[in-house]
Every structure is written in C-alpha cells, then in structure tokens.
C-alpha cells in the first residue's frame, strides 16, 4: 500500500504526521511499538528539516511518501531546503550534553538507531531521504 502526505515547514504540522501514523497504522494493523518508532523517526527527521532546512520566513512543502509492505515500511522524505545529509554527521549523544542546541545530534542518533536502512540523495535541488523501518513483531 502506498500513501503520500504533504506538509508545510511549520512545526505545528507535525501533528498531522502523528494523526496520519495513528490512522494508517490502525488501518494496516501495525502494533503500538512500530507506530511509536515510525512516529518518532518522522518527528526527528521533519524537525531537523523544519528548523534547519530553510531560511526564516520561507514557506515550503515537505513531501512524505510511504510504501507499506508485509514486514517493513519504506519512507521517502523530499524537501527543497538546503542540502543536508544526516548520514555524514558523526553523532555522539554526549555532544548534546555539552551544548545548548535544542535539535540536532540526538535526533539523528535516534533516526539511525531505529531505522533498518537510510539512504540520502540530492537530486535537482531536492533532498531525498529514504528510510526503511522494520515492523516490530
């Protein structure tokens, strides 16, 4: 099953994602842990894009495409913000303890640890982040 949702680069829009995960998860009978992980990964990825991807005042769309299979979900997140490859960042949670940044390293660490695979491409001015998440049994 494929689904697409489009949000604007506003932190309030994350509520739409939470509702989407909840409703779609119920529809295809994902268990609570899978929904939790999917929601957490999306929240962390999208928070980074919304806070860091665009200059202040720029309004933009973020497209999130899902493909749900029998045992995993493929998610592609597409935005036209500044190029950012989270895989290139070496992350240590303790970095966050020594600085006052609110978003960043810890979120990327969560994305990497909870995802099965992550791939990043920059194509025609767009960031494409492809994430594979296994369902919890």
């Amino acid at each position, binding site marked *: 099953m494929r689904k697409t949702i489009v949000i604007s680069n506003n*932190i*309030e829009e*994350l*509520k739409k994602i*939470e509702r989407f995960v909840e409703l779609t998860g119920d529809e295809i009978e994902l268990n609570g*842990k899978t929904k*939790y992980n999917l*929601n*957490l990964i999306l*929240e*962390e990825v999208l*928070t980074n894009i919304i806070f860091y991807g665009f200059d202040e005042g720029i309004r933009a769309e973020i497209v999130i495409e899902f493909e749900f299979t029998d045992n995993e979900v493929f998610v592609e997140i597409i935005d036209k913000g500044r190029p950012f490859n989270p895989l290139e960042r070496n992350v*240590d*949670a*303790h970095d*966050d*303890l020594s600085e*006052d940044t*609110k*978003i960043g390293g*810890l*979120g990327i*660490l*969560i994305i990497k*640890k*909870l995802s099965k695979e992550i791939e990043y491409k920059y194509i025609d001015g767009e960031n494409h982040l492809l994430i594979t998440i296994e369902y919890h049994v």
Partner: protein
Amino acid sequence: MFDVNRITVRKFELLEISGKLVTAEAYKLEDEIDKILAESSAINFIFDLRNLEYCSSYGLRIFIKVKKDLGIYDGVVILFRPGESFMKLLEIAGLEDYFYIKNDWNNIIDLLADKSINL
C-alpha cells in the same frame, strides 16, 4: 497533548508529566520549568514519568538541561518510573546512567539519605 502537575515539598519540586511530549509542544514544558527554576528555592527535581506516553529528542533534552542547570547547585534530578519507550530513548542516546532512575519511593528516600538531603 501533555499535562504537568506540580507539587512543591520544601526542597523538592515534584512534576508529574503525562501524555505526549511532542516537539511541537515541548517548549511549553521548558517554559514551565524555567518559570519554576526562577521562582523556586528548590534545587532538587523529581519527574514522575509514569504516565508519559511519548517523548521526542526535544523532550529528552529538557530533562538533560534541568540536570545541567541544577548540577551547578549540587541539585538532584530523579526520573520516577519512566516507561519502556522512554528507557529505550535513553539507551539509544547512551544516557542510561546519566539520571537517577527510580521505580519505588523507598529507593528515592534511600538515595536522598545517601546524599544527606532531607525531605
């Protein structure tokens, strides 16, 4: 999405946090805690997380910040009965040993006695 219930007991602030600590709303908790830190003489915090259903990295960072802020005054931050998902978050972040995590009030009393903190 989330609620905070505050109880002040002399040198302690007990904050019961319930619901979902999502990034879009976590700043409200941050504001609330900043207000408490500014007005309270307490330097020890217990966060009752029994009913916290969800926490983003932004939410976790708030607890880290409180511990850092209170650490200057030798304050203590205790997380009371965090759920499985919060513990997983700490594990991912490599912060399992960063906070005092207690699941029983008697353990909290023992910890405070060890640190010579009177309730």
